[in-house]
């Protein structure tokens, strides 16, 4: 079974040289720690920059330089700043190669819910709806079940949706799955996790074909 860093490490294997990538808040942010050696990828932050670097050294933080989570960051050589409408032109116009998002629920047809829990304080969707509606390659990073052990990979989402039929791949603490017309297609299991465990933790339709390899980290 993977922890959050393990999930991020597995998702980093999806990066390709030359990719522009948008990372959501939470587990997705950790993906930046596992960029394969020698690979060039650029991170887009939807508040208006490409070429986002790591957190600044203490004392070097700049109030004018933040990421979409409002954290102080740095810029790498070749970075560029732009306004919000240009930023979402990049996103809506499908110029971003890969989007990694967290989720509360994902359905087996690729619907995603990650912005609102009725009855709780609603903070808003931020850029998530624009991202999921337009990105051609959306990987969701999430835990397979909630704290009560209930599946978050469902036949249908129960929470208010962020987008419909948009997720392409899901990486959880238990498995890697693609979204297909027939449901979640199991591609890999996490180290030490059986296919049976994945089955039991998945409420949505799960397709298991042949031998399922274990993830390599």
């Amino acid at each position, binding site marked *: 079974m993977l922890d959050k860093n393990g999930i991020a490490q597995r998702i980093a294997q999806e990066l390709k040289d030359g990719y522009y990538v948008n990372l959501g808040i939470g587990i997705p942010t950790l993906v930046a720690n596992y960029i394969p050696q020698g690979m060039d990828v650029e991170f887009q*932050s*939807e*508040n*208006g*920059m490409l070429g986002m670097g*790591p*957190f*600044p*050294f*203490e*004392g*070097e*933080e*700049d*109030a*004018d*330089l*933040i*990421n979409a*989570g*409002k*954290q*102080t*960051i740095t*810029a790498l050589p070749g970075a560029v*700043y*732009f*306004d*919000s*409408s240009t*930023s*979402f032109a990049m*996103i*809506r116009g499908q110029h971003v190669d890969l989007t990694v998002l967290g989720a509360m629920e994902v359905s087996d047809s690729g*619907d995603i819910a990650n912005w609102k829990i009725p009855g709780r*304080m*609603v*903070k*808003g*969707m*931020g*850029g*998530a*709806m*624009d991202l999921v*509606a*337009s990105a051609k390659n959306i990987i969701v990073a999430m835990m397979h079940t909630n704290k009560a052990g209930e599946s978050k990979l469902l036949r249908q989402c129960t929470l*208010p*949706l*962020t*987008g*419909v*039929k948009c997720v392409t791949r899901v990486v959880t603490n238990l498995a890697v799955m693609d979204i297909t017309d027939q449901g979640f297609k199991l591609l890999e299991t996490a180290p030490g996790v059986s296919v049976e465990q994945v089955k039991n933790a998945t409420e949505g339709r799960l397709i298991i074909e042949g031998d399922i390899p274990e993830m390599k980290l």
Partner: protein
Amino acid sequence: MSINKVVAGPKEAIQGIQDNMTIMFGGFGLCGIPENAIAAVREQGAKGLTCISNNAGVDGFGLGLLLETRQVKKMISSYVGENDEFERQMLSGELEVDLIPQGTLAERCRAAGAGIPAFFTPAGFGTEVALGKEVRWFNGKPHILEHAFDASFAFVKAQKGDTAGNLIFNATARNFNHAMAMAGKVTVAEVEELVPVGELDPNEIHTPGIFVQRIFKGETFEKRIEQRTVRPKA
């Protein structure tokens, strides 16, 4: 000759603000917000305002200052709630909140400034954001109809500006400031540095002065940091 848009200070800059107006405020979180204009609107006391801003500030800073004084009737934002007073007013029903996708928010500003009354976007299709909105399919994909904003004033903040209203922003403090500058019927820019025309390189200007009606040098900029994240020096 160029047009001189300089006003003496924030008090003069916000002249014409009235109760129940719709006003845009640039910024993302607390980054690049028009601090001086917000303080002046608080001082001036206009009530019943509809504020278009990506976020709603924090307690005691940014738009949180106008929430404290109950000057805001409605917030139109993409992400809110980093603010206890905001939460209290929202839950008690004192404050109306319209949450919309961030890209749609930006484009509704840009469209307003560009003379585009409405546009179709895929963002929000199939979600509660799409309720009651016209849906049309383009290139095999569903899109929803969104309308340009209509704001009497836009308050923006830039690093540098000249007396003709040309603006240059710093880093990610550009965010919504450019599109909102385009959108305001009256756009007021506050800058850290105000220079005579001719000093800015025309190649380097981000927002052409044609979009800006008033400009002033802000007296102070606190530039508070919302999430200070650092790494130790190795």
